């Protein structure tokens, strides 16, 4: 693999041990994947384990050791960088069943990490949706460690980004380079399988969670192949919330970095262009009601209607979702046996506050939080969880066989009703009840 003079100097340690280590990792990755050279990036999104990945217990110490080894003498990053949500908002950690000891430990590991990254100049987004703060551009090379954002930058902006992880994105932010492989190369970005939505599905009337189900149905059928959806209504592309639900599930259920949508995404103005040289030899997969129902059935693991927790915001609750919740909750109260946690970003929280939503929600008894990962933060709770996110559902139910939390998965509307009633009513067209 070719390295230019500057990259070679980094590798030789001229810019310190941290940069050297970062370049060693990037080169190993490049060699392993057959890269010919490095490509310069102009933005990175970081996922440090000591901020977001279980910063307590044995894994907390391991995560800290892993990163300390990497960042030893680093005092700045080569590119602007945003950062993932914190593992949990320590102010509500007790309500999410974390012990005093764990909270104390997290306070130490997480807070010292947060201070460190902010001192490095990291933009303190603490968000899995950093594109609201730092949008990408067509053909811009970036390095992102956040599954939905990888999909978002590649798909919605046409930026170029591999499925980088916490270690690679940090190495990339330190050096300013990534190996030129995969999504960084035009020839790898063409669609490899066509997804057609059957007429029986009324996508225009989809609830938000139906997009999660569609996403799961697609990813279970395309597996490693880049899909192009040939007939999605263009209105889907105009809704951040619909796109969030559509991209979040496929991001974790598949290994895919990109999902073309004809007429919606920049590299798919037509089906032919999205398929490029593959247009002769691709198969078409049909998604209908049966596939959507099947996805719901996979995500819903609860049997009892009783609800203990309603956890919304994987990823963060958007303004549209806030509005849906407000419409239903109005003057009502959250059921006394239910903890209703709404997790958003600082940006949306401020807007929701300006709009008077937070007062209404607090009065109703909801717990509002921001800048944390509710998928992780919710993994300690015991009892039945309702969520509007399949990604969240998988984290809660697939995590540990012995401490499995039964999950109801449905729309924001259904989840809000569950928070008020203390039980799952369902009512979605394709969903579980």
């Amino acid at each position, binding site marked *: 693999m070719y390295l230019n003079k500057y990259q070679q100097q980094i590798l030789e340690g001229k810019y310190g041990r941290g940069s050297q280590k970062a370049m060693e990792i990037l080169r*190993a990755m490049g060699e*392993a*994947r057959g890269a010919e050279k490095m490509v310069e990036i102009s933005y990175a999104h970081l996922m440090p384990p000591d901020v977001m*990945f279980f910063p307590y217990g044995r894994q907390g110490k*391991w995560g800290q050791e892993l990163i300390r080894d990497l960042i030893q003498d680093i005092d700045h990053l080569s590119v602007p960088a945003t950062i993932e949500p914190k593992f949990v908002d320590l102010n509500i950690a007790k309500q999410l069943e974390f012990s005093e000891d764990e909270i104390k430990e997290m306070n130490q590991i997480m807070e010292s990490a947060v201070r460190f990254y902010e001192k490095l100049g990291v933009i303190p987004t603490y968000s899995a949706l950093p594109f609201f703060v730092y949008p990408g551009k067509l053909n811009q090379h970036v390095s992102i460690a956040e*599954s939905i954002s990888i999909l978002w930058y590649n798909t919605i902006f046409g930026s170029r980004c591999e499925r980088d*992880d*916490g270690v690679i994105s940090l190495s990339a932010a330190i050096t300013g380079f990534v190996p030129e492989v*995969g999504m960084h190369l035009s020839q790898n970005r063409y669609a490899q399988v066509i997804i057609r939505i059957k007429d029986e599905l009324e996508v225009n009337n989809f609830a938000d969670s139906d997009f999660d189900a569609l996403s799961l149905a697609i990813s279970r059928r395309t597996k490693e192949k880049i899909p192009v959806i040939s007939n999605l209504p263009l209105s889907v592309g105009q809704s951040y919330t619909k796109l969030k639900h559509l991209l979040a599930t496929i991001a*974790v259920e598949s290994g895919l970095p990109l999902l073309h949508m004809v007429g919606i995404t920049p590299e798919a103005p037509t089906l032919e262009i999205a398929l490029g040289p593959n247009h002769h030899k691709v198969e078409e997969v049909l998604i209908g009601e049966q596939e959507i129902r099947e996805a719901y059935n996979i995500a819903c693991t609860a049997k009892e209607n009783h609800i203990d927790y309603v956890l919304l915001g994987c990823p963060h609750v958007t303004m549209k979702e806030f509005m849906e919740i407000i419409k239903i909750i109005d003057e009502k109260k959250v059921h006394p046996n239910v903890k209703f946690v709404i997790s958003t970003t600082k940006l949306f929280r401020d807007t929701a506050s300006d709009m008077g939503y937070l007062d209404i929600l607090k009065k109703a008894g909801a717990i509002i939080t921001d800048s944390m990962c509710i998928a992780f933060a919710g993994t300690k709770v015991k009892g039945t969880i309702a969520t509007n996110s399949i990604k969240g559902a998988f984290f809660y139910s697939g995590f540990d066989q012995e401490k499995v939390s039964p999950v109801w998965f449905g729309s924001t509307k259904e989840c809000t009703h569950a928070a008020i009633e203390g039980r799952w009513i369902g009512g979605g067209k394709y969903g579980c009840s």
Partner: protein
Amino acid sequence: MDVLKGKSVSKKHPIVEGKALVIKDLIAFWAGIDWESGDIVEVAHSGRGQNVTGKILVFPAGKGGAGETFGYYYLYRNNKAPLALLCNTVQATTVAGAIICNTPMIYGFKKDILKVIKTGDHIRVNSQKGEIEIFKENLIYRKE
């Protein structure tokens, strides 16, 4: 005995050998596998209940979020990691996990390894050559 050639993530590892565990579905090392036990715990996964520790793990590719590497790293730190990783297609997070945990990993074989290898087969992984040797389960194999 079959010999298959693929691409090795790192050539520096010594030869390792062990029993194959063949998993037909994509694997998530974070959340899909419990790092405390090494068990596959993902709901509706064909490998649910199987244990990856010390196995030559044969799977189509990695999947999951950007935290995959950490999931793999915790498995490794807890001494529950597989002995080697063999996959059809390469996924960056799997490679990153293999690099930071020094796990031999070979991918991109000419044949579909899920069809060629069966669970229980004895596999010898030669990272330097990017080669695997497959000794079928029903043939008694002795090292000497």
